[in-house]
């Protein structure tokens, strides 16, 4: 079986090929949430570069800005200050429509709460993003079958989320995230609602996804999942405070 996202998918070369811009390049990202009691600064000048095929784990205490950073990287939210480039394109200048297209075709999301559509079966949940992206029916079917097989749920294709366990739902969510062969997979506490054994299965699956060519950024409290990443970026109070020395990718805190 072909992996879900490999360089020979014809999408982009892996890191080290040289010419390709980084998948995500953030510089001085700041995010301020206006609140009735006064503005809350969630991110303070975070810079990050992520090349193809890498895996990054962002860790830190609750409220330190991990999820906010992930939302900005995934074009789910917009920064108050700073710049974000997706494959060299300035995301701050993209329209809502273009940002939606980026989320649809270049970025996959996996969340703690799975966020599967409850009225759809596992098959339909995986097929939905492909349908929105305009993939032909035969290609969609083949890809959906391939992905459900890849995450080990080929026999649960017709089941709705309510008929699946937490681990199975998360695997469907991963399959859906990979549906359009994204360049980047963003995961926010993907093992947060799973028991240890099931969490390890998900960790294995993420490992495999990354090995098969998908760039991974995971926000997690799970040390097992964090240690599997090639780089671990701890955060405190909206800042990245250190980076893995083994990494070939620059991650720094602006002004630090």
């Amino acid at each position: 079986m072909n992996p879900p996202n490999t360089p020979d998918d014809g999408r982009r070369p892996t890191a080290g090929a040289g010419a390709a811009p980084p998948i995500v390049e953030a510089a001085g990202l700041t995010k301020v949430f206006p609140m009735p009691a006064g503005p809350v600064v969630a991110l303070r000048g975070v810079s990050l570069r992520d090349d193809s095929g890498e895996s990054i784990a962002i860790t830190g205490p609750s409220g330190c800005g991990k999820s906010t950073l992930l939302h900005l990287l995934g074009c789910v939210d917009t920064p108050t200050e700073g710049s974000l480039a997706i494959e060299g394109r300035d995301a701050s200048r993209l329209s809502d429509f273009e940002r939606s297209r980026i989320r649809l075709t270049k970025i996959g999301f996996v969340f703690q709460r799975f966020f599967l559509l409850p009225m759809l079966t596992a098959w339909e949940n995986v097929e939905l993003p492909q349908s929105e992206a305009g993939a032909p029916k035969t290609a969609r079917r083949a890809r959906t079958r391939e992905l459900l097989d890849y995450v080990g749920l080929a026999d649960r294709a017709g089941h709705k989320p309510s008929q699946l366990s937490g681990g199975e739902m998360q695997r469907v969510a991963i399959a859906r995230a990979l549906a359009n062969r994204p360049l980047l997979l963003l995961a926010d506490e993907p093992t947060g609602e799973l028991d240890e054994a099931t969490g390890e299965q998900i960790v294995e699956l993420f490992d495999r996804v990354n090995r098969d060519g998908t760039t991974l950024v995971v926000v997690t409290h799970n040390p097992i999942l964090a240690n599997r990443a090639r780089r671990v970026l701890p955060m405190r109070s909206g800042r990245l405070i250190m980076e893995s020395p083994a990494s070939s990718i620059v991650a720094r805190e602006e002004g630090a």
Partner: protein
Amino acid sequence: MSIRSALALFGLTALPPCAAFAVLSLAASPVVPAAANEARGPAADISAQLAASSPSDPPGVLVSRQLLEESGLAVGEVVLFSADPRGARPAPFRIVGSYEPRPDPMRLGSKRLEARLHLPDLIALMADPSDPLASESVASVNVALHDRKDAAKFSSDLISRMPGLIATPTAPPPDEADPFVVLERFHLAIAIVTVIGSTAFLLALMAMRADERRETVGILRLIGFTRRGILLEVLVEGLFIAVAGAVFGVLFATATQGIVNRFFQWRYDTALVFVRVTAPIAARCIVFAVPLGVLAGLVASWTLLRRDIVALLRR
């Protein structure tokens, strides 16, 4: 002849479509109960006495269905009519048939206790015995025309032919004070209030329904669905639901109009038709309902779509 009961004359109201009869409208309880034979009913008592005491066959009279039922009368029986509320100078009449009074929304609550007499009989009944010319004259006569539009021409024609006669149309201009026109305006006002009220209700309902789909919309936005795409889907869904709802409403109204009419006809003892779903009404319903439904869906959905994805997905 001992008159122990009488039908009280209420007033001359209108000529029936058949010009040979005039109409008597009778008070709600025109028949005074007979003391001697209550078991048979007062009217039967009267007619029995009259039948026994009248040597020649009395003139015929038509009575309204309501009067027939109210008084327990039957076709063929003889009754007494009097122009005097106390029953003085009664005249016998034989019931030759009954009729359904023309439904009149202005008289919805009143019982149509009426009778139709031949004009000469009516004149004779109404005549004052102290006035020798009483049977030769009437104070006023109502004339029903086939087409009410001819009323003005008819009255002017009569006046020109009979100097001294006052002839005026009794029916108001059809577009002004006609009861049905007034009713239709009343219905229109009710319809407008209903539409405004139901639109507000629909909007609130759709806003609640949309909020139930908050997370679904958030997920769709998260995985890359555009606002425009979601709005388009809501539009198609809203259009389908609105059309289905409008068609269902029309079919439901069509199916239940008979029940509604029968209930109110029973309740008010009238042949008046209260509900009638016509093709223009059905078309108007659909023309109003579909855009309103779609608009309500779009407005409710837009309240969700304008929020950012994180807010949509937040618990």
